[in-house]
C-alpha cells in the first residue's frame, strides 16, 4: 500500500541551515549535510530544502550544498526557493536534486511549469502555493514573494491550473497557520486535494501529532511537511510514524 510521506523541511541561508521566526531573527542551526543525514537516519521519506538566501549573488552556494547533501542521502530530495528559469532547474537537478519546487515564478511566468514538466518530467516539478484565507468570500488567495505580495488569484483555481500545466505535486502552505502550531488548514488542504489528481503536500501549522494525522486523513494530503516540530526535537520522525501507524495510516516504518 502506498505510504503517506513525512517530510522535514529545512531553510537554508547562504549554505547553512537556519531557524527563524517569520523570516527574521535567523539563527544558525547547523550544517545542511549533517541535518540531512540525521533526518534520513530517522526515516524521513523525503527531504525539502528551501533556499532563503536573500542576496542573489550568494545563491550559487546552494548548488554546492545540494551536491553535498545528494551524495549522502538515498531518499528523494526536493529543492526550492528563488527558482526563476529552466536553467536554474537544470542546474539543481544536475547537482542531485530529484524535484524542484517553484513558487513565485510559477505565478509570474506560468509557462515555466509547462516547460519544466516537458523537459524534465512532471515528477520533478512541484508547484508551491502559499495561500491565505479571505473570510468574507470564503476563499483562499495566493501570495508570492514569501507571502509579501497578494496576487488576486484563487488558490483552488491556481492549483488546478498548475496541475493542468504539468505540475507533478502541489506543496500547499497555509499562511494563516504557518508558525502558529494550530494545525494545517484542513478545509483548504482537502479542497485542493479534491481539485487535482496529483499528490498534495500539506504544510504550515503543525504543532501536534494529531495535526499530522488530520492533514493526512481529513485533509486528504498525500504527504505531511513540517519544520519546527522536528528542528526543535519536539518529535522524531519515527515517533510521528508510530503514532500514524497505530491509527492505521500507512507509513514506511
Amino acid at each position, binding site marked *: *500500500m*502506498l*505510504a503517506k*510521506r513525512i517530510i522535514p523541511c529545512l531553510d537554508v541561508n547562504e549554505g547553512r541551515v537556519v531557524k527563524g521566526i517569520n523570516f527574521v531573527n535567523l539563527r544558525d542551526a547547523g550544517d545542511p549535510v549533517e541535518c540531512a543525514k540525521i533526518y*534520513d537516519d530517522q526515516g524521513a*521519506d523525503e527531504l525539502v530544502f528551501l533556499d532563503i538566501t536573500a542576496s542573489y549573488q550568494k545563491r550559487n552556494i546552494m548548488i554546492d550544498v545540494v551536491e553535498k547533501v*545528494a*551524495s*549522502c542521502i*538515498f*531518499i*528523494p530530495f526536493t529543492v526550492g526557493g528563488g527558482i526563476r528559469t529552466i536553467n536554474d532547474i537544470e542546474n539543481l*537537478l*544536475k547537482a*542531485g536534486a*530529484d524535484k524542484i519546487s517553484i513558487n513565485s515564478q510559477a505565478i509570474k511566468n506560468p509557462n515555466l511549469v509547462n516547460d519544466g514538466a516537458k523537459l*524534465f*518530467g*512532471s*515528477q*520533478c516539478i512541484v508547484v508551491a502555493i502559499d495561500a491565505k484565507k479571505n473570510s468574507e468570500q470564503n476563499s483562499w488567495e495566493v501570495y508570492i514573494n514569501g507571502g509579501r505580495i497578494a496576487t488576486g488569484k484563487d488558490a483552488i483555481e491556481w492549483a488546478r491550473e498548475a496541475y493542468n500545466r504539468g505540475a*507533478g*505535486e502541489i506543496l500547499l502552505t497555509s499562511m494563516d497557520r504557518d508558525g502558529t502550531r494550530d494545525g494545517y488548514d484542513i478545509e483548504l488542504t482537502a479542497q485542493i486535494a479534491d481539485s487535482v*489528481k*496529483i*499528490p498534495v503536500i500539506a504544510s504550515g501549522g503543525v504543532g501536534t501529532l494529531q495535526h499530522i494525522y488530520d492533514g493526512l486523513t481529513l485533509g486528504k494530503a*498525500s*504527504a505531511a511537511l513540517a519544520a519546527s516540530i522536528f528542528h526543535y526535537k519536539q518529535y522524531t520522525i519515527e515517533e510521528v510514524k508510530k503514532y500514524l501507524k497505530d491509527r492505521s495510516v500507512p507509513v*514506511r*516504518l
Partner: protein
Amino acid sequence: MKVSVVDYNIGNIKSVVKALKYLGADVRLAANANDIKTSEKLILPGVSAFGAAMDNLKKLELIQAIQDYIKSGKWFLGICVGLQLLFETSEESPNSQGLKIIPGIVKKMDDTKLIVPHIGWNTIKILKPSIFFKGLSVNENLYFYFVHSYYVCPNDKNVIIAATNYGSDFCSAVEYNNVIATQFHPEKSQNNGLQCLKNFLEL
C-alpha cells in the same frame, strides 16, 4: 565491482551513480556501443518518456549494442523506464518500438480512480525468490520508492519476481535470464534499495 551505467542524455542518472559509488563500485558511464560491449555489468536507468528514451538510444546507436550485450549473458539491471524499455511497445508512445527483450507491453495506470503518477513509497510482495532480494527482511513491509505512470505486463507471468498494489496489483520487478529490472528506484529507496544494488554488484 565494476559496473557501467548507460548515459543517454535523459533524466538524472547521477543518483544511480552516487548510490553505486557509495557501495564501493567502480562506476563507468557507457555512452557508445563499444562502452556497452565492454561492460562487465550494465545498468539502464531512466526518468523519461518511453518514446523519448528510445529516440535517444537510437540517436546514440545504442539499441543494437544493448540487445547484443543482453544476449551475451552478462548481468543487466533496468530501472523504471529502463524496465519498460525492455518490452515491445508502450501506451505512452504508440509509435515507438522498445528493445523487445521481454515479450509483453507497457500500459498506463488507471487515472480515472487513482492519483497518477504513482509517486511515493509503496511495498513490494516478493513472488519468486531472487538473488536481487537477498538480505531483505521478508517479514516486514518492504517499502521502495516509485515514480511512474505506466507499468509493464509481461506475457509470461513467470518472469515477475515482485508485485505492488496500487488500485490493483502490478508487476514491480522482473527477472528474465540474466536480466533484472525494477519499476521502483532502488537508488532512492534508502536501505532496502541499497541492499538490492549491493546484491546486483555482487552477482
